[in-house]
């Protein structure tokens, strides 16, 4: 059995409290605050205490899904990406680039967030990009 603690930063709001993930046999088991962190000094709010819940949640998607006739059907990655790209092109042509908005998330990495906003600004050509932690 293997047990180690990995320090990280809470992904929810903009405060950035330090957390420690308790990793047992390669799987995250629980979250505790990092006592020597300058921002939170060992205290967390309820969102920070439950960071480990969504990582291994049974509710996470396992395959891409496309909505057909009002219900979601399983699809492959190629189908999903192709469908999304053709829809974006159609909407941008018909209604203009400012009709598309992109909402990024606190639960994805900083690099993915950067990629999403670059995509929105450079490829789609709109400024309508925002983040849940800005609220």
């Amino acid at each position, binding site marked *: *059995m293997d047990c180690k*603690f990995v*320090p990280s930063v809470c992904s929810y709001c903009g405060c950035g409290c330090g957390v420690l993930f308790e990793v047992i046999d390669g799987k995250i088991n629980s979250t*505790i*605050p*990092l006592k020597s962190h300058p921002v939170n000094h*060992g*205290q967390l*709010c309820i969102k920070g205490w439950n960071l480990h819940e969504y990582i291994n949640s049974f509710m996470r998607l396992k395959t891409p899904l496309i909505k057909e006739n009002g219900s979601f059907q399983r699809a492959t990655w190629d189908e999903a990406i192709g469908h999304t790209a053709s829809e974006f092109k159609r909407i941008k042509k018909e209604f203009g680039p400012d009709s598309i908005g992109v909402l990024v998330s606190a639960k994805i990495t900083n690099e993915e967030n950067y990629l999403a906003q670059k995509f929105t600004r450079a490829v789609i050509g709109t400024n309508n990009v925002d983040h849940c932690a800005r609220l």
Partner: protein
Amino acid sequence: MDTIKQIEQLILQNKVDIFLGYKDLDGHLIPHGFTKENLDELKDLQISDNRYSLEKVATHLTEKNPDIKIGIIARDCNKRALNLLYTWNQLNPENIETIDVNCCPSPLKSHSDCSYLEPRQSGEFKKENGVDYNIEPEAFMGKFDNNERLTRWMYEFNKCIKCYGCRNICPVCFCKECSLEHPNLVEPGTLPVEVPIFHLIRAAHMAGRCIDCGLCEEACPAHIPLRLLYREVNEIVSNVFDYKPGCSDEKSPFSVLGGDVVLEPKPMDFKYKEKNNGL
């Protein structure tokens, strides 16, 4: 350091499968599990000033593998927590090895390793309107009358943000279905939390369990003096039931249904008759 040699011996002689200690990572001392595979990391082992709840990690490991042998760095408060977990059947004393480390300073020890030696100072506003961190329970009872005590505690409890930090970090809290999440006792999804029932439920559950480590107060973002409240709970249990959690092998008085009960219900006191002048 001698401690490192001792731990190395314990691991190499297979007396423990995993040893829980602290490791330095970029200036932060965090808990770490040392095993045979990563023995070379032992040289980074340090006894940290910051205290983490290693007993809770031990219970998580035991949950997954009941036969695992665990070694722990133990101060006095850790030893009390381990004793208590033995009486509640959460850990097996034959599977746990402890290495004792320094606790509070005394003439016998050269230095101390505890973050609770510098307790938080209460500011002026807190002392005037709320409850001082460092006051003793008897002094608190003697200094203020009923109404004043209530107002001060309500001031403190109203700051609670229901983060469940006190329960999550407590080394002796292990219930799978916590009463604090029961929809009939605590309304789910409401903030602010219903004072004072939330804290009184927790205090009632700490009877016979709290070992006074102080981690709850350190983890509370609203600076509620929880340690004082649970110290009072421990005093009540000690006075009425003559039981000190973690200091012996007996089971808590609240865990035994029936049994010999020598308490009698208290009679009602009729002070009101004097107030109403016998009307």
